[in-house]
């Protein structure tokens, strides 16, 4: 039983070879040929290798005998396969891995606007013209195509490096590449490297491509103008926001966070923050607020600049880091603020009262401790709440002017009730705090002595503390106040007058009041000014 043998001529020497070995040898020679055909001096190399093949076959079999599969494989093991010739003549060694993970990129090699269609084409191994047509077609439907295109443009990275191009083409990379290389050759011969060559494309595809190229340029210009406008507005917005933030928070520029009730009080939030929240938390709150606010603004400016100058930067890591920092700041801020908020959750009240031993016709009210004797750095008035806060920065003390309510007491008795109120995490804590508020009042004969302010213990933060003084007197009793104690009355907000003949205000200095059925009223309209 003889296999069919073939006579072949290798490098001038005749050999007999069996059919199976011939097939392997033929493929091998073809591979060698492909490998060196396009290399300078490649034909000579091919000859040398063929000559060496002949030599090996001769040393194995002599001139007689049939070359078998084993002979051929032994020969290939000696000379090696083309892919084992580990050096580059003008192209690189193929990557060590053969199977590529595939990713979608924008293809910078074949683009009309940004290479989105071409990238999808490479990903799906299809003609990009199809996607160009689809994008234009779907733009007719409420601009969905246009929108999708922009989204993809932003979302898809450009395949810049070679490894990205490999990922873009996936397993077709080498075929795409070799095709391109041969195209390269053709182009070089024709001397028209710049003209895109679509050797295998249909004429319809070509026409489409030309049309889309023209439309693409116009679209591109319009889009660029559009993006520049958006970019400029983003930059301006971000810049102005940061500027105002810096002005308010760093240069204490008044205006934004101030109240102008009497044209004197400017509330500068960071100053008061120390007294509202746990002092150790205040710097954190300010820092985190700054980050939470500034970061998005910086991002806005950066996006704007990017849109204006239209560059792509390797900013993925920075952006991600920025985003993570921002999220963490916001989360931390929320936790801190929540924690601070809890400390206002429960309210505790303590009240004490004193009753005059006899009921005077004229009641004198004098101030004990007076605000005018206080040293304070900041004053904050919440007139609607009848609440004025004085802060001594050095001693870290807070003084608050309480309000005095004068009510009708049906019994013929004069009674003073002082209610202290604080908030805290628990009711017990709130009670403790309320107890800690220092406020003195006393009765001597016909005189009621009231402190003009109450004091929060030094170092303790503000906990919505309040003291209210309820003075109950029979109707018709005359009240004579000194100027400091009248301030307490000015804070009186229970007085409601429809015809506006009287409204408590700084201008009004009467000091003699009386209680009527409708509430207290100045006894004479003469101003003491």
């Amino acid at each position, binding site marked *: 039983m003889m296999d069919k043998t073939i006579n072949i001529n290798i*490098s*001038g*020497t005749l050999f007999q070879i069996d059919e199976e070995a011939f097939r392997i040898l033929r493929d091998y020679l073809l591979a*060698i040929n492909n490998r*060196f055909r396009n*290399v*300078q*001096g*490649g034909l*000579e*190399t091919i000859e*040398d*290798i063929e*000559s*060496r093949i*002949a*030599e090996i076959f*001769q*040393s194995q079999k002599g001139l007689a005998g049939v070359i078998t599969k084993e002979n051929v494989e032994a020969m290939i*093991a*000696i*000379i*090696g*396969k083309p892919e*084992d*010739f*580990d*050096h*580059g*003549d003008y*192209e*690189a*060694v193929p*990557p060590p891995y053969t199977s590529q993970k595939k990713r979608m990129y924008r*293809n910078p*090699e*074949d683009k009309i606007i940004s290479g989105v269609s*071409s990238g999808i084409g*490479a990903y799906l*191994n299809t*003609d990009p013209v199809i996607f160009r047509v689809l994008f234009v077609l779907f733009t007719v439907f409420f601009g969905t195509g246009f929108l999708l295109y922009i989204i993809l443009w932003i979302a898809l990275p450009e395949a810049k490096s*070679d490894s990205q*191009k490999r990922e873009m083409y996936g397993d*077709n990379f080498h*075929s*795409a*590449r070799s*095709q*391109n*290389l041969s*195209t*390269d050759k053709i*182009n070089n011969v024709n001397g028209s*490297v710049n003209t895109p*060559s*679509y*050797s*295998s*494309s249909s004429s319809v*595809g070509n026409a489409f491509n030309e049309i889309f190229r023209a439309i693409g340029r116009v679209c591109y210009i319009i889009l660029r103008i559009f993006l520049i406008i958006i970019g400029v507005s983003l930059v301006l917005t971000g810049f102005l926001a940061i500027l105002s933030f810096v002005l308010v928070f760093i240069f204490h520029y008044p205006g934004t966070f101030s109240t102008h009730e009497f044209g004197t009080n400017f509330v500068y939030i960071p100053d008061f923050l120390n007294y509202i929240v746990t002092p150790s938390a205040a710097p954190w709150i300010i820092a985190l607020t700054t980050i939470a606010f500034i970061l998005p603004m910086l991002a806005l400016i950066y996006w704007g600049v990017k849109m204006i100058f239209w560059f792509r930067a390797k900013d993925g890591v920075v952006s991600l880091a920025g985003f993570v920092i921002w999220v963490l700041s916001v989360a931390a801020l929320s936790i801190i603020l929540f924690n601070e908020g809890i400390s206002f959750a429960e309210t505790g009240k303590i009240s004490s009262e004193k009753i005059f031993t006899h009921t005077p016709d004229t009641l004198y009210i004098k101030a004990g401790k007076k605000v005018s004797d206080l040293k304070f750095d900041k004053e904050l008035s919440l007139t609607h709440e009848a609440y004025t806060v004085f802060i001594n920065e050095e001693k870290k003390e807070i003084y608050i002017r309480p309000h005095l309510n004068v009510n009708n007491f049906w019994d013929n008795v004069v009674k003073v009730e002082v209610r202290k109120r604080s908030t805290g995490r628990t009711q017990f804590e709130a009670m403790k705090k309320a107890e800690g508020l220092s406020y003195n009042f006393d009765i001597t004969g016909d005189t009621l002595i009231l402190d003009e302010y109450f004091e929060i213990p030094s170092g303790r933060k503000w906990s919505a503390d309040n003291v209210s003084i309820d003075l109950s007197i029979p109707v018709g009793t005359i009240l004579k106040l000194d100027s400091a104690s009248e301030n307490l009355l000015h804070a009186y907000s229970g007085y409601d007058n429809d015809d506006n003949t009287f409204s408590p205000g700084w201008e009004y200095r009467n000091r003699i009041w009386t209680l009527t059925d409708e509430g207290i009223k100045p006894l004479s309209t003469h101003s003491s000014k």
Partner: protein
Amino acid sequence: MKRKLIKLHIMDLENNKAQMRKGILEYCILSVLSRSSCYASDIIKELKEAEVIVVEGTLYPLLTRQKNAGLLSYRWEESQQGPPRKYYELTEEGRNYLAELDKSWQGLVDSVNQIRTR
């Protein structure tokens, strides 16, 4: 599949290694030939022993290139066992080139050693 030509700028490690090995290989070929003229198979034998190459196919394109660059010349020698074989030798230019390579190689080795032993 229609794509514009791709200009490849591959600067990855594999390529660097290949380039380096190719440079060294060319240097080795010239060094072998500097001792005596010989057949391709002699060069191959020596390079294989030194484990500079694994397969013979690597050598042939390099020989062709060096010959075309004027560093080598060959003459045909009859062989008793088969077809005539190329018998390679260094040209004058090749010797000068090798001398330059020797110098730069020594320089490189010194530099690398200096850095590595510091």
